[in-house]
């Protein structure tokens, strides 16, 4: 209650809903009651991390069977672990506590902007060469390989995102769009990071458009999907 404001008004009492309406609601809500197990936010976050990790591991294994890691295996695994921790952080701030008890909204907004920006910077730093945009467009097969990478990233990211959205379906009536965007970000990271670990092409435009842009796309898609899927 607002304690620093004296109650100078006599507030109206809450009206009772009509009996017919109450009876209809009681009938509808108790007709097919099947016992369900209650859910725990922390356990479900762990399940989310494990399922995303499994999809990430599958994608990494398949990718490395086709192309060996571009850096030393140890560095590649360290990179994967670092981004895995980041993804765990995104999942924790977006879902780690029950809706209505989640921490600062500013922290969630910050994660939504900082993580994709950091990933794009990471791509810029790790790119071996950057052609001019015209050279990139006319270079043989560059557009084709970027398109193929984008499709792979989208497919695996979508798979991870769908798993996350199903796990958290109808849980957040408070800010489903923001939670959806963070869920999309976490799912998109699976595809984008695994692809970055396995793709042999390290040209800058290829990395930004084929690997980084899909992550941004997942944030936007998650924003819209959240409203539909995460709201009860």
């Amino acid at each position, binding site marked *: *209650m*607002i304690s620093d*404001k004296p*109650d*100078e*008004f*006599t*507030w*109206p*009492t*809450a*009206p*009772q*809903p*009509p009996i017919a*309406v*109450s009876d*209809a*609601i*009681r009938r*509808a*809500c*108790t007709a097919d*009651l*099947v*016992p*369900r*197990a*209650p*859910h*725990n*936010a922390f356990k*479900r976050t762990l399940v989310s991390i494990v399922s995303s990790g499994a999809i990430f591991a599958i994608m990494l294994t398949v990718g490395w069977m086709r192309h060996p890691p571009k850096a030393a295996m140890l560095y590649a695994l360290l990179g994967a672990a670092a981004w895995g921790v980041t993804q765990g952080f995104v999942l924790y701030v977006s879902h780690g*506590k*029950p*809706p*209505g*008890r989640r921490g600062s*909204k500013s922290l969630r907004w910050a994660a939504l902007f900082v993580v994709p920006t950091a990933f794009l910077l990471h791509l810029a730093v790790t790119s071996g060469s950057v052609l001019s945009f015209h050279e990139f467009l006319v270079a043989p097969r560059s557009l084709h390989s970027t398109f193929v990478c984008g499709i792979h990233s989208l497919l695996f990211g979508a798979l991870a995102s769908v798993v996350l959205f199903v796990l958290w*379906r*109808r*849980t957040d*009536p*408070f*800010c489903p769009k923001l939670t959806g965007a963070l869920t999309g970000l976490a799912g998109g990271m699976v595809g984008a990071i695994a692809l970055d670990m396995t793709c042999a092409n390290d040209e800058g435009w290829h990395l930004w458009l084929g690997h980084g842009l899909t992550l941004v796309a997942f944030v936007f898609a998650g924003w819209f999907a959240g409203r539909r899927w995460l*709201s*009860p």
Partner: protein
Amino acid sequence: MTDLTLEELMLAYVAGDALSFDQLYRRMAPQLFAYLVRLTRDRPRAEDLLQVTFAKLHRARSSYITGAPLLPWVLAIARRSFLDERRAAKSRNEDLSSDGALPEPKLEDDKGASDTAEAVDVALNRLPEAYREAIQLTKVVGLSLIEAAKVLDTTPTAVKLRVHRGYELLRAELQHLHRLSA
């Protein structure tokens, strides 16, 4: 059973106990209905939205996360249902009245609002939606600023500001009503 919190009753309802739902309904429905009447300013619409809200609660009961504050959770569902319904109504063809005007929501009659609570009720209905909602949630439903901010998807400071400005307008409106009835 009456000693249980709303959250404990919800967990029992999730586990399949119909009696717990009855208790939940008894304790939440008046507050929820009052909030919806205040939002819509139209009792039949509020009754429809009450049913929609409980239908959504029933459908989403297995998604309820242990520890989530139940009353704000359900109020947020009710608010989103109201916003969805209003958005859908905007895109529907409205029936125009005989003089070609769009139908306005019916306000309660303010003649003879002599009783204090009744006068506050009438004056509250005249406030802008943002102020009306903030006052209803904090003063009538009894949510804390933080809980009201969660329901309204804003910050506690913004809720406090809305309540303060709402108070100013409410005071002016009540003086106006008092002059009318005098």
